[in-house]
């Protein structure tokens, strides 16, 4: 039990940068490049952690607290996510609401830090990030409500636990629709391609990246690491919802879970490679579409 808890925490802390590495590798393979090593982000983080930081004279403690609070919030959210069908470290009825609020807290901290610099570009990025995520939010909540209704459980551990398999047999269409909506939300929340381009270098087109322009050194490391943890969280949610593998013992299930997560990273890489970025005015349409899809899923479930 203690061993498994340590394993879960270790997975949460160590795996996320690997996912981004896999995604980037898939993208470079599609582009015909060799691409950076899969473990590149680990080296980047290590390098950044040893560097000094530069702070704008305009900033206050809010700017310094941004990365810390953001990372702490996503890590705490991670303790509520069940790994491979086993209950999470922290589970109580209604914890999915806290999960969503912690993700919002992370965004709140980052947006405040961006506004603290006084730069118009970062203010613009914060405005976009907050606007788009407030449109993605109904979809996320509706997906969670669909899952809660289908499994009859109010906790993430229950939703993604043993009750999931019978729910799939009873309400496959609704769960499938909500999984699609969840994937759209995951792409939007993690600022991946149809919504935001993580590689762009033009402030006017950035969303998430422009908010963190002023962060450097360890602060930037915290932010990059937090972003990868967030991708891990959404990936874990989606992977558990879609592929409920509980073959063999606990450890086989955990191994399958890790493999599925890598599959999720590859899928994100493929989506980023084959899709163009949407015009900014089209992004709200996609997010509202995801919400409408999850409303439809809920209706299918309720009738």
């Amino acid at each position, binding site marked *: 039990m203690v061993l498994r808890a340590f394993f879960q925490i270790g997975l949460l802390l160590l795996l996320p940068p690997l996912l981004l590495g896999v995604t980037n590798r898939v993208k470079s393979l599609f582009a015909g490049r060799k691409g950076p090593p899969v473990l590149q982000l680990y080296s980047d983080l290590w390098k950044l952690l040893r560097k000094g930081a530069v702070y704008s004279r305009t900033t206050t403690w809010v700017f310094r607290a941004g990365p810390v609070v953001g990372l702490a919030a996503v890590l705490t959210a991670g303790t509520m996510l069940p790994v491979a069908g086993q209950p999470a470290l922290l589970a109580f009825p209604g914890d999915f609401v806290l999960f969503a609020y912690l993700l919002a807290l992370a965004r709140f901290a980052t947006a405040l830090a961006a506004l603290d610099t006084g730069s118009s570009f970062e203010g613009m990025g914060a405005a976009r990030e907050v606007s788009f995520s407030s449109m993605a939010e109904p979809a996320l909540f509706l997906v969670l409500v669909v899952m809660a209704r289908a499994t009859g459980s109010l906790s993430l551990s229950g939703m993604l636990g043993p009750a999931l398999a019978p729910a799939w047999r009873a309400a*496959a*269409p609704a769960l499938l*629709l909500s999984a699609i909506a969840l994937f759209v939300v995951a792409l939007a929340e993690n600022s991946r391609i149809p919504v935001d381009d993580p590689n762009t270098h033009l402030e006017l087109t950035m969303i998430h990246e422009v908010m963190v322009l002023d962060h450097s050194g360890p602060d930037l490391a915290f932010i990059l690491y937090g972003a990868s943890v967030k991708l891990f969280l959404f990936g874990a949610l989606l992977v558990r919802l879609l592929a409920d593998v509980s073959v063999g013992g606990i450890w086989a299930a955990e191994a399958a879970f890790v493999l599925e997560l890598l599959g999720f990273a590859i899928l994100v890489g493929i989506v980023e490679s084959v899709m163009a970025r949407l015009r900014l005015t089209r992004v*709200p*349409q996609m997010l*509202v*579409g995801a*919400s*409408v*899809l999850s*409303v*439809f899923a809920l*209706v*299918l479930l309720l*009738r």
Partner: protein
Amino acid sequence: MGAWTDMAFILVVVLDLFLLASSRLGAAIRAVALQGAMLSVLALLLTSSGHSLRHVLVVAGGAFLIKAVLIPWLMFRAIREMAIRREMEPLVGYVPSMILGGVGVVLSFAFSRGLPLPTNEMHPFLVPTALATVWTGLLLVVSRRKAVTQVLGFLVLENGVFVFGLLLTEFMPVMVEAGVLLDLLAAVFVMGIVMFQINREFASLDTDALSSLRD
């Protein structure tokens, strides 16, 4: 079998929502074609022992040929001839029309059980899908500006009526259904000719421009 029928109905509704959101005419025509194909699949999937197989095959085959092949081909030809690719900003924006579509879906699923219908043995998704599709078609016809999209809306409307007709396959003679399909084809032909005329006269398919006609 039941799960596949469920998925087919849900795909029809999802295509409705997609049509409300899409601004590219090519994608919208493909979606309408796919919806037509799904309708013919549905006609086959819903076959029960009470139906005559020949009847079902004729209806499904006719629907596939006309709705999924012939009309989309005509529409593609039309947009190629007239060199239009995109809908312009519609009267009701994409986001509001998607939300309206979602509201329509919710209402049709909520209220379809209270309707008095000739048969009770039907798929639970049939009537709501038909209502949602008719609603989507109406929305498209009313809120879009380009004549092409309005024709697409009319097709969606007609698809909804067809879904409703699946309920009545036992009661309706084949000739009536064939007549409906041919009627649709004739209507699309007429609209195509009208579209060509509008385009030739005004070099645009914006139907708003029609209301400013003067002697």
